């Protein structure tokens, strides 16, 4: 019972903050609401026995990626609300319609799922030890590729952001 109440509260906060991200006109407020969303999702991950992933969610997403977003917003002074009025009028209603349609389909499909009622995984699954073992044995090649990808990303972003001496 307590678990359901906790999930309900966290889900409401997550949905409201996601709505704020999408429908807010101020980019800085969108960014801050997204941080709140990530934090709430981290709490939901903790209830799913994914402790390691939850802590990493706060460190990586809320603590690094969103700081990067805020940096770019502040450096390029993009914090002012959208001042240009929308020209095209067909985009929004169509997006809402199709979005609602896909959402209805997904909700119907997930309600029709027949899964065993109780969670099967023990609390040990989310620890660093088990994930580390799997990561370095079964998933070793993808891990190395991820390292290459991140290195390429770092080099790429440094090259892109460098001022060319003109």
């Amino acid at each position, binding site marked *: 019972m307590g678990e359901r109440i906790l999930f309900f509260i966290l889900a409401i906060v997550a949905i409201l903050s996601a709505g704020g991200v999408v429908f807010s006109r101020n*980019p800085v407020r969108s960014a801050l609401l997204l941080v709140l969303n990530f934090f709430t999702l981290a709490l939901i991950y903790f209830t*799913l026995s994914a402790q390691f992933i939850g802590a990493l969610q706060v460190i990586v997403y809320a603590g690094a990626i969103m700081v990067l977003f805020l940096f770019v*917003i502040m450096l*390029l002074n993009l914090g002012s609300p959208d001042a240009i009025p929308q020209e095209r009028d067909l985009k929004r209603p169509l997006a809402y319609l199709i979005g609602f349609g896909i959402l209805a389909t997904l909700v119907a499909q997930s*309600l029709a799922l027949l899964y065993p009622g109780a969670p099967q995984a023990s609390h040990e699954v989310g620890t660093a030890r088990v994930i580390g073992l799997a990561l370095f044995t079964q998933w070793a090649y993808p891990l190395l590729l991820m390292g290459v990808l991140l290195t390429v990303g770092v080099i790429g972003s440094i090259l892109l952001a460098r001022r060319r001496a003109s």
Partner: protein
Amino acid sequence: MDAVPLNAYLILSAFLFIMGAVGVVIKRNPIVMFMCIELMLNAVNLSFLSFARYQTDLLTQVSGHVFVLFVFGVAAAEVAVGLGIITVMFRLRESIDVDEVTLLRG
């Protein structure tokens, strides 16, 4: 204590995903578009982890967590490069309205 059923997590994940997708289509500020993409990636992470909780053998359970780690890595690299592109775009034309970036030449 009753556990939360899997369907609840999946419905939440679907909500977040659709809101992110609608945001990407609607918004014209590329930074907010990026944020909505991150929202979509997080919704997918949530569904991975909730499926992982309901698996029966350890190998598939852990695979869910490991895959979420890879999604983290990909998202981080993508944000770094994407924000670099936005910075360059802003330096070149002083406005970041996505609807104006229609030519490949920059």
